[in-house]
């Protein structure tokens, strides 16, 4: 029933897989929101 502990590489990969698209969405939204201050 035991298995090797979850590796850090697997954890990092999993977080990157969701972090990169989320970062893209946040970046695009910040660009849009910046128009509020720059006109």
């Amino acid at each position: 029933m035991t298995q090797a502990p979850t590796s850090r590489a697997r954890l990092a990969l999993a977080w990157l897989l969701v972090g990169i698209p989320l970062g893209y969405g946040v970046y695009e939204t910040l660009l849009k929101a910046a128009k509020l201050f720059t006109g």
Partner: protein
Amino acid sequence: MRGKFAFPFLDRSRSIAKPGFSRWLVPPAALAVHLSIGQVYAFSVFKRALQAHFATSLTAIAWIFSLAIVMLGLSAAFLGTWVERNGPRKAMFTSACCWGSGFAIGALGIATRQLWLLYLGYGVIGGIGLGVGYISPVSTLIKWFPDRPGLATGMAIMGFGGGALIASPLSVRLMQAFDPRAAAPTAIASGDAVMKTFLVLGVGYFAVMMFGAFNVRLPPGSRGSLAAATSTGHVSPKYAPLQTGVTISAANAIRTPQFWMLWVVLFCNVTAGIGILEQAAPMIQDFFRVPAAAGSSLGATSRVSAAVAGGFVGLLSMCNMAGRFIWSSASDLIGRKRIYVIYLGLGMVLYTLLATVGSRSTALFAGLAGMILSFYGGGFATIPAYLKDLFGTFQVGAIHGRLLTAWSCAGVAGPLIVNAIIESRGKPGALNAADYQPALFVMVGVLAVGFVANLFVRSVHTRYHERFDASPATARPSAPIQFKKVAP
């Protein structure tokens, strides 16, 4: 739904974590699903192209989104216990199949100019994927993070907000890639480009959600109790005192006044937030409208351009998403009841300030609205943790599903109330700050109702609690736990 499922590797028993599994692998699995289904809030980017392609009214196209949201509420409410019984992997797999095939059927509808296929695909089948996909990751994360349920639910539900932030620019880019003429400022993408975009999104979301389905795990033992997770080293024993041990079934939960108080709280919180979201762009322009110069043939103009108004909408989206994570996480420290006192009480103050002094400067207006939207997001994300506090983790997903009917109702009531009041003063986009005051003060009243309902929330009476019958058959970690009502 109790019959054998075709794929045994999706069974609940096969998704129980073994010792050594890190619970920090579960949030990305949950986010993979929520980031995908969050696309639904970016559906508006297709509206104009679909309207032109089908040569129909905007209302007919808007029905696709409305149908999806209604199905989200219905499937979350009616399939919640199925989700709890069958585990997150099967639920996420089902959600991925529904969401992916919803896009594929929608693409077929666009290709054949059959609008009903879009209703059926994206609206009905995709909507079922939304409901099942929404509650399953939230419920699983609560079980993994009983020590920090607010953080857990904040992470997942932030993903739902984040999904729209990704899908909106991505869909525009895809449509422009498939139809380069659509890059012109006033151009509309062809139906062919929208169809191909649907196909790409469907395949992409299916793949990402599969990643979530195959990485998600349930804590070992009794449906993810803290005791079991602590004993296997998944959770530090120092958090053990936080476990309340309350176990209340979904069927019993809806019989408690606490459930309906929280229903009212969520309904009021969402209704008030939608009040701003619905009219954000025209509202900021109207708040800063300057009268036409004497003798000028032009009408009143706004100091806020359409581009700046678009930036304001972007800011609100960011505040909405950030609030989901920040406020929900903070609720672990502040307490659930207290944080709703802040959301709703401070929300009333902020709405009043917006109505009375919001027109003094755009920075003040944007700051107040941004704060209100962060509370709106926080209210969404904290509610499952509140449910966990009151009803335990046993069927929290199913209870959450039933509570989401408040969201569906608010999604209809909020825009209806706000639009009716605002339109009684004139056409949005040609009003001034004073015209918005009645609608904003109504929102203060709505928040006040939620505030009072929250004050009435107390611990659930023990007569609603389930008693765990620890028979040998249910002692196996993979076996579904059976609860039996015993005389108190």
